[in-house]
């Protein structure tokens, strides 16, 4: 699930702004994971969150293409 959950959001929007891929949006004053398929699992949102509200997972939510397997 990439960015997995947001618990205890204080509505500061730091994660929304710091996400390079526009994954997170505000809804009713709280951050929500709007576009999980576009998460690149870089953790910037988690690092910018001032209240440690964001939990990450290393798993991508869509199939991953690599050069060989």
């Amino acid at each position, binding site marked *: 699930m990439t960015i997995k*959950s947001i618990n205890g959001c204080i509505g500061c929007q730091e994660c929304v702004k*710091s996400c*390079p891929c526009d994954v997170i949006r505000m809804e009713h004053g709280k951050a929500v994971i709007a576009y999980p398929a*576009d998460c*690149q699992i870089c953790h910037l949102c988690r690092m910018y969150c001032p209240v440690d509200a964001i939990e990450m997972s290393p798993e991508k939510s869509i199939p991953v293409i690599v*050069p*060989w397997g």
Partner: protein
Amino acid sequence: MTAPTEKPAPNRREFLALSGATAGAASLGMAAWGQNFVEVDVDAITNTDFATDVLVIGGGMAGLFAAVKAHDAGASTMIVSKGRLGSSGLTPFGKGFFVFDTDVETDTIDDFVDTVSRSALGTSNPAYTRQMAEHSMARAADLREWGYFDQTLSNRPFMKPIEDRDIPLLERVHVTHLIKEDGKIAGAAGFRNDAEETVTIRAKSVILCTGAGGFKPNGFPLGDLTHDGTIMAYEIGAKVTGKEWNDGHMTRSDNPAACYDGWGDMFERVPSTNGVEVHHDLGVDLNYTAYMTGNPVAGGPGAQPSDGDTIEVEGGPQTPEEFQRDFGAPGGDGEGGGPSSGEGGAPGAPPPGFEPSANVGGASAGMAIHKSEGLVPFDDRCASNIAGLYAAGDALGSHMSGGIYTQVGSSLTGSAVQGAIAGEAAAEYAETADTPVIQDVRISEIVDEILAPLRLDAGYGPAWVTQTLQGIMIPNFVLYIKKASMMTAALAYVEELRDHHVPMLRAANMHELRLAHETRNMILSAEMKMRASLMRTESRGSHYRLDYPDMDDVNWRAWINIYQGTDGSMQLEKQPFDTWPT
């Protein structure tokens, strides 16, 4: 716990469009062709117009210095960034900043420039290598003053000089078009991620600090970098170079898309400076081992944990003897072989993503080499062939490093140095340039082009087209271990996407509008990569041809420049090493 928002019910017009059609597929994220459930009222989208002397596009290291130095040189300056200052592109993730400290280094800058050139097999541009080293201490001093070396996250130290100078900053605005009038740059246009609004910016000079890009690959934080600047510039007549080079970073076989995990804790480190350390780390040599022996690269998918031994194969990409290193067993806990400092880790250690253990190739698929793809520089001050248009950092094909990444930490330094030089050059140009005049009809044409994916009643999902492009380009036997037959085949697929799918990329909202434009840019970049790779009938540095495995100094001491022909087709030409274009 939060969840993705539900799609709103289609409005009346969309219901009418749906009548008689199959609606089911459109609710799937990865659906290919389908109805476009547009969530915004396209006709109500407004345009906001700005004007400035110098417009800086991009909010990374190059963009920061371009804006600060253009402002300090007296130009009214504005920055526009697709993301947030210091939190977009590759800048947030680089932690090593190279400085050439004459009090510490025993060799001269001349020696350093020569060493880079030898590792780069002649592909480096010594003027840009030298400039990077000469200005490195001054840029590090600027950054130190702003607090960059005191913390992990770049936004606050980057904001300091911008706020001190009151430089206008537009964030989360995706620029899609450069505007040229009477042969000179006149501005740029794009749209906001967070509002139903297009944006036009009239500017006497524009500096592209838009980074390079990839195919939204897995395992490298390139997701927002899709060669936007390069493609915009190409479309108004700029020349582009360096597309045949391949960055060689690898990723882990477990959860390959997890870039943070693949880089140990590097993303959370405080940036630091490092001195001279010139390498020739290919990455593509491991792609070759996998190709020739059926994926026994130590630690590859399904393999046993590495004991540090690497399998020897005949042939393949060669590292010059002077730069050969034995990485040996991964250091530390083996979890990505986390380096101890900076981008390159401990002296002598492989950079993260280059260890011959627990890896699968192609983390950065679609990216060439830092500073070696992008606009062709026409002088040593970051000018393009279009009057008033400059580029800096990874958006400039300066070949500062060459067709392989050579000096550890030079990526951030090169962006800072080139940003500053481009900022001053652009301010100087703007001082005597006339205020551009852009006709309303031109603005309206551009706005129509920007919003076209929102107006389609049906079309191809940009996420699906991107995945299709990844499936064509990323396989080892296309992008890395190159041969004419496969590249010709891949090019045919890419041309199909270009001609048939690009015009039908759909978008339901501003997020998907961004994906649609990004997808289009990646497709054009893929075409450039295949055409340049087919043209370079030799192997050199990070470009490896199975059908031309040797370096050809008779015919190929030259860079490849790409430009749009008068009929709109992609044209390629050679530019000899050690020369400037005319």
